[in-house]
Each structure stands twice: as C-alpha cells, then as structure tokens.
C-alpha cells in the first residue's frame, strides 16, 4: 500500500512561490500558525492553501511531488498500486512485535543490526511481507507501513494501549472520508496518523501543538509517511487562544488531549458543525470532572469511557498429572529441573494450547513444548513492568455530540 513516485526535487525551483502562498495563508487567516524561519512549503494544485505548512528539517529529506504514503488516497491508484519494494520506499523492518524500525530504502543503503548486514539493493523488487536475509543468515521481515505499525515504531511497548484508544476515538468521533478534524495537542502524532487514515482521501486533519519542536517533529514524520497533504500541523496555544476562527462551524470532530481541556472547550464548540462530536482525553478524574462541567452548557450526550486492551500469550503446554508425579516434589523449583529432561514420557501429561493474559504486548515467541510453570518463570517482572505501562494508559475518554441550534 505504500505509494512512491520519483519526481525528485520537483519543487526545489518553485519554493519561493510556495513560501509566499503559505505566508499569505498565515497572515490572511490569522490562524496563529507559527512557521519555522527556514520553512519549506509545498503545494499541489488539489490542495487548499491551508494544507501548506511544513518545516525546516524537511529540507534535508528527498522531496517528491507525490509523496510516499502510508495508505492510498489517490483515486487513480486504486487496484493498481504496486506491492513491490522500490527505491525510496518507507518500509517497516519487523524483527519482533516489540522490535520494529522504519527504514527508507535506498539502492546503496545498508542496514546493520544484531543479525548481521542487510543490503537494501537485495530488497528492491521483492514484495512487501518478504523475509530478507543478512550476510550472516539472520532475517527480518519487510512490511508496508500502516498506522498501527507506525505507532509501534513511534513508541515501543505501549503501543497496544494506544491502539485501543485510537480506534475507539476514531469510531466515536464518527470520522469518515471527507471529514474535517481538529486536534490538540499533536504529541507524537500517533493519533493524527489514524485520523488521517480515516479522513482520506478528501478530508483534512488540522492538528495543533504548543511546542514548536514537537510540531516540527510531527511534520517531519508526516512527510516521511507521506501524509502531508492530509495533515496540517500548527503551533498554537489552544488552551489560551482557542482554535483559529477560520474553522468556525466547519469541524466534523474535535479531539482534545490537553492538561486543562475545559479552557479549550468553549472554542471547540464554536468550531463544530451541528451534531459534531468532541472528545477529550484526560488521565485524571478531576480533569474529567471539570471538562464535563464545562461541556454541560453546550453539549448533550456527554459520556465518559475508559478503554482497555488485554493481550494473551498462547503456549502449547503440558499439564502434568499429579499421579504421575510420584516421588518428586512438584514445587515450582523442582518442576524447573524436570522440564529440562526431554526424555519425559509424553503420556505423563496432556498437551493443550492455553492462553494466558499478558501484561505486556511482547512478540509471541515460537511455540515450544514447555511446562506451564515455565511461562511463569519467564516473566518474573511482567507484573511490575505492567504497572508502569498502565500509568500511561489508564485515561478517560469523554465524548459528546454537540447540538447547536
């Protein structure tokens, strides 16, 4: 699904023009977008001027007229996109579920990791989803990027929690192709990527962050993933200034992830269309309480949700029979020894596939014949790590449908 066209540096010449266009948007709209001084602007004919904000660091990347995209949003490409890896493509290197990396393919490129040295040139022409080998026979899989894989690449280990929230938000905000969505703050851009997937091919996400640096990194990421024509990143203090007036009554949905969301809610309600939906995401109950209080004046159908996701570990295990355990103490400790001896008669145990809820979303290791207790011994710290992860995740979602008359 990764799209790639090679009209390289097509825009270099017209950058002056674009920069002017971008400035005129910024001045005219009085939107509060802060643009880095060394900004590079790009416009395609089909894009509205508002789409044209990008930043300094992009200059160092190869710039294409048609972008690498994480998912197709050009109607001419349907059913005909290539599934073969080309030079310049963004691929996700999959080692394990918790070990992935985004890599830009270049003919002369080389990747080195603990498995050995991989030549990019050997990847080109292979289909996405292929297993590729290093000089030492080690291997990784090359996957086409998706919003979910991107989230995994962006932030290891907590990804599965994010996915549950993201999916629910997109569904609850009723985002479909063509929607105009406002978001603040941008953060890692993980949700933004999923919002962009949902509004593609003809909607737009305007996302705002107070931090110039964070906004710039997010913009850079959207360039890499080819979503720049769907997402505009602005630098703005939404809690202090509200959303730009140009979006008055135009937004289908608004998403807030702010420390004091109640400050942004009055502005958000002005931006929303009739029956549009607002979602605010807060970790603490006091934030939720204040937000709900503020929401009650303009919104109906105010609901607060918490979303969780548990993962399961699947193993083929031996359930040992007590009776066959004659003579040896079947404590956890002694079982450990027993497990090492592979000459154990198979009939001493029944082999079953069992699922155990998991604290962390680790890569499922290859199936092994193992004693059940092995699973326990393997993750002695699973619980602790888990508590840590959970602090990030346990958040509230409150969603409302506004009725503005």
């Amino acid at each position, binding site marked *: 699904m990764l799209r790639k066209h090679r009209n390289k540096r097509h825009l270099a010449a017209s950058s002056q023009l674009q920069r002017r266009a971008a400035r005129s948007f910024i001045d005219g709209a009085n939107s509060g977008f802060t643009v880095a001084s060394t900004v590079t602007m790009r416009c395609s004919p089909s894009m509205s001027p508002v789409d044209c904000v990008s930043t300094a660091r992009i200059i160092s990347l190869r710039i294409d007229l048609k972008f690498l995209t994480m998912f197709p949003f050009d109607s001419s490409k349907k059913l005909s*996109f290539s599934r073969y890896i080309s030079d310049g493509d963004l691929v996700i290197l999959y080692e394990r579920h918790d070990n992935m990396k985004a890599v830009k393919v270049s003919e002369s490129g080389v990747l080195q990791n603990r498995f050995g040295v991989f030549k990019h040139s050997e990847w080109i022409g292979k289909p996405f989803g*292929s297993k590729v080998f290093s000089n030492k026979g080690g291997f990784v899989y090359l996957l086409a990027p998706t919003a979910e894989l991107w989230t995994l690449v962006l932030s290891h280990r907590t990804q599965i929690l994010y996915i549950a929230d993201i999916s629910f938000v997109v*569904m609850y905000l009723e985002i*479909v192709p063509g929607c105009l969505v406002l978001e603040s703050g941008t953060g890692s851009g993980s949700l933004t990527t999923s919002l962009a997937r949902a509004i593609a091919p003809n909607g737009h996400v305007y996302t705002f962050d107070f931090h110039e640096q964070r906004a710039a990194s997010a913009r850079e990421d959207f360039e890499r993933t080819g979503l720049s024509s769907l997402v505009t990143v602005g630098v703005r203090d939404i809690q202090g200034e509200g959303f730009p007036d140009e979006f008055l009554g135009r937004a289908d949905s608004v998403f807030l992830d702010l420390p004091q969301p109640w400050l942004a809610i009055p502005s958000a309600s002005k931006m929303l269309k009739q029956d549009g939906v607002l979602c605010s995401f807060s970790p603490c109950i006091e934030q939720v309480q204040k937000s709900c209080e503020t929401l009650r004046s303009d919104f109906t159908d105010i609901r*607060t949700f*918490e979303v969780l996701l548990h993962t399961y570990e699947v193993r083929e295990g031996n359930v040992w029979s007590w009776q066959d355990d004659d003579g040896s103490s079947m404590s956890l400790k002694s079982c450990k020894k027993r497990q090492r001896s592979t000459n154990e008669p198979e009939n001493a145990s029944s082999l079953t596939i069992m*699922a155990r809820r998991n604290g962390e979303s680790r890569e499922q290791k290859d199936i092994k014949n193992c004693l059940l207790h092995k699973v326990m011994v393997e993750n002695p710290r699973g619980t602790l790590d888990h508590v840590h992860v959970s602090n990030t995740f346990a958040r509230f979602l409150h969603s409302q449908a506004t009725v503005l008359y």
Partner: protein
Amino acid sequence: MSINKSEENSNQDQNPRITWKGCSVLLDINDGDRVLFSRLTTGSKIKIGNKNYSLQPLIGCPFGSSFQVEDGKEGPVLSRVLQSTEGNNLQIMEESRDNRMLVDNNSAQSLTVEDIDEMRRKGASGDEIIKALIANSATFEKKTAFSQEKYLLKKQKKYAPRVLLRRPFARSICEAYFKKHAERIGFLRVDTLSLLLSLANVSAYSEVLLVDMLDGIITGAVAERLGGTGYVCNTYCGVTPYPINIVQMFNFSYDICQRIVHSSVAELHSSENETAPSTDELEDASNIRSQPNEQISSPSSQNAVIMEENEDGNMEIMSDVAASPKVDKGTKAGRKAPVEAIKLWKENGFSSLIIAAPNLDPWGIIKEVLPLLSYSASFAVYHQYLQPLATCMHNLQAEKMAIGLQISEPWLREYQVLPSRTHQHMQMSVTGGYILSGTRISGNDQTQTK
C-alpha cells in the same frame, strides 16, 4: 467529501447532518429505553405509549435533535425541543442529606391517577404534569439529590417521553444493537468493532475481504470507512452469501452500495492453479450465481420482517424499510463482485481481511482465505471465545503464515460523571469477545510473488 458527494448524487445539496425524506434514522426513546430504526417517509409512524405519532415533523431536522410529545390541533404530534434537555432545571446540589429521615410508604403522592388523566384531557404538557407531581409529593423535598433525580427521570419517561434523532452511523448502530439485540451482532461491542477496523488497516481504497456473519454490521462499518472507494467483498463457503440486513440502516449512497459486493470463496480461489482464469468461465460463474444472489434479497427482507415480529418492545425495525424509495434495485448493497475486480484481487490480493463467524472454527476459515490476501496485508479475526482463537494463532505460527500475531481482549467501561456522584459503571459488557490480529507474510523463505 466522499460521503457528502455521494449524498449529493441522490439529494442535490443535501446536508448529511440534516434528515431528508427517505433517509434512515435511529430513534432513541427515553435515553436508550427503546431504540428503533426507521426511514423518514410521509407515512411512517411510531407508537409511544398507546398513541401513534407521525415521523413527518422529523424530516429536515438536524441529527441530534430532540422531540417531545405534544397534543397538537390534529391530535398527538412530535414537537422539536429547541432547548438543551440536559439538567431538567433541577439544581443538583452537593449531597448533604441522607435518607435517615425518609419513611418509605405509598401515601406520599396526593395526586391520583384520575387527577393526572384529567390534567391531560385539559391539555397539560408532560412537564406540567411532572411539576404537579412534585408539588403534590410529600417526600420529594426530603429526598436526597440521588433520589430526586431518579424520581424525576422516572416521571419524565412516563409523562414527557423524549425522542432523540440519531444519525445511523457504525457507532450508533452498533451501540443500539449491542444494547438491545447483542446476539444478532454476535455480542460485538463498539470498541471491538473499532479495533477490527484499525487492526485490519481499513482505509479509503482498501480492498477488504470479509467473512461477516453478523448480519452486515461489519460490512456497513467497513463501507462507511471506504466512503465509496475500494471494495468490501463478502465471501462465504457454499452457495449462499450471508445476510447483510444491517447495511440497509446506514444512509449509504449509490456509490457506497456499489462498493459492497460478494463472491464465494471457491470463486475467489478458482484460478489458484491456473495462471489466469478465462473471462468466459468467470462470466459463467457469475451467471450461475446470479440466482442465489437474487434470493438473498428476499430472505433479507424476510429477516427484516422477522426482526419486527421478534420485537420485544425495545428495538424495532420499521416495516417501511422495504417500501422505502431508497431501497430499489440500484442502490441495493451487496451485488455480485464484478469480474474485473475479482481478476485484480487474484493478481494483487486483498489489502485487508476481517472474519467474524462466531459459531465457526476460525482456523478452518482463515486457512482458506488468508492466501487471498496480499503479502504484508493486515487481518483481524473476531470470536466470542478465547480458545478457538488460541488454537488458530498456534496454527498460524506453526505454519508460518503470519507475523505480529496477537490475541487481544478489548475492555470498555463507562463512567458517570456528575457533581458529587462520579463513579464507574461496570464494564459495558463482560462478553466483549476477543480479536486475533496479524500480518500476512510471504511463504517460508520463499521470495516469489503471489
């Protein structure tokens, strides 16, 4: 905007956030006590209490509007409430009273049933009746805020019922079914549905292969996300596609309906051993299949009727669905997949796969349909039980068909957030089911393309 554009095809300049004649709506009566789907035609009616109300006043109103029952000149009518209905103007104060002093007996209310009937005959509104009930209650003032609220809500539901006009979207449809007829959608909760769409990487221009045995809820949700691009192809074993009645409840345009197709698994596999299937063969297959294809439309309308008959007072499918001008041959979703589309799928593979077959062994299905996916494509399998998915995951690992395999169990919990009365509800359901997700990979160490 694609959904908007589609609407424009059928209704010039139609704002999709305002109802139109013939559109499908979800009516929520008394905050979820009753939920029903209907098409807004001049003739359609709903029964509330013992009276019938025309749905005519709902046409042209924005989704999200509320209606109350009124006695108009020509009998009872639904009248739009222009004020926000939250709060009921009851000042909920911080809880300080408790129920120490409260003696429960039935003599607290001095207004009799006859008194209330008399008020009604004289044209009193529901709100007026409730005010009279409060004024004549000996205990209302002594009640705690909790109890006052509970009392008001009960009386409001009885004497001043409210009808909320909801937009039929995947979210609202899934919530309505889950609340009232969860078994019809295989107990699929809205957060689980949202995860299926994410984990299968559904986006515009996706070519989504589905095994949807949940009466079309997944088909509808996917089609909504495609917005008239790509394809959602329902596949099935044997000769008869599974019914997708729920798709009718969405306000899908012709464009979107055209993207909802079906094809048997045998058909999708037919050229597996040949390099390319002859067009004749395919046309042939298509012709053969056109008959059973015709047949679905009748069982599905039958089903709609059955739903109505099974109606337990809580969720109804309005009988005018079939009679609606929108449900003509043209906009009917679920046609046979076009030959050229099947050909392209055979060449490129599908980009996504979702399976929801609660009573079948998921491994039996996935081993048949996974090869129809392109490499690196995402899939998600829903099942109500953990064990069949665990076995399925084990087999997929053993046969090295996929990576990134994960079984997840979504949880959703709602909170009541009200001053001094904030508390968590239980999980919306403890039967939210499980999802097995992963990414298809190229066969073991083979690098040849599919």
